[in-house]
């Protein structure tokens, strides 16, 4: 079974600085999808960014970018110019075509003013 690991239960970053959240996964498949979701305190979980494994180019969404290393099965999220509103739980997720999502345990990010 596929598993997703987020080795950092908690992280903190100074406002305006850059932070990288780690995610590794275990799979024997070659075509799959990876996602980062953000869950702000007491608010709805929303999609931050997604990556298709067949694409070599790393996905980018404004201040959010990923470092996708397929051979290493690594999918880290980089947040540039951190803002107070970035404070949240971040979940990494893996999805195989036609299968359900597999979520990691989450990383709680604090942003310090």
């Amino acid at each position, binding site marked *: 079974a596929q598993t*997703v690991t987020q080795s950092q*239960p908690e992280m903190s970053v100074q406002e305006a600085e850059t932070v990288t959240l780690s995610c590794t996964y275990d799979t024997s498949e070659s075509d799959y*999808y990876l*996602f980062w*979701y953000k869950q702000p305190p*007491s*608010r*709805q*979980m*929303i*999609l931050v960014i*997604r990556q*298709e494994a067949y694409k070599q180019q790393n996905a980018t969404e404004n201040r959010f970018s990923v470092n996708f290393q397929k051979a290493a099965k690594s999918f880290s999220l980089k947040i540039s110019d951190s803002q107070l509103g970035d404070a949240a739980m971040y*979940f990494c997720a893996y*999805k*195989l*075509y*036609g299968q*359900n*999502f597999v*979520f*990691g*345990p*989450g990383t709680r990010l604090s942003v310090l003013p």
Partner: protein
Amino acid sequence: DVKVTQSSRYLVKRTGEKVFLECVQDMDHENMFWYRQDPGLGLRLIYFSYDVKMKEKGDIPEGYSVSREKKERFSLILESASTNQTSMYLCASSALVNSGGRGNQPQHFGDGTRLSIL
């Protein structure tokens, strides 16, 4: 924007009670899901449904059942609530996997229901 609405943000029930958690989505999504979220465990799938009156067990279905009588509504039922079911429950919906896309349709989540069983 997709709107997924869960009927309660906070709910307190007693051991042995029958508990209903309701979820409604407004985007005509075929797929609906119920997860529970516990610290250090992430999201674990309880049940999901790909169509009306259709349901499939997820990873942790024991102690739960579901109902999907209408496309937009997916209910989670705790037949006889127990204290180990105290948790945050998240409902999600997504478009059909094989609707021409490659299966990377994201899930859209509700606000969650924090359920306490006393």
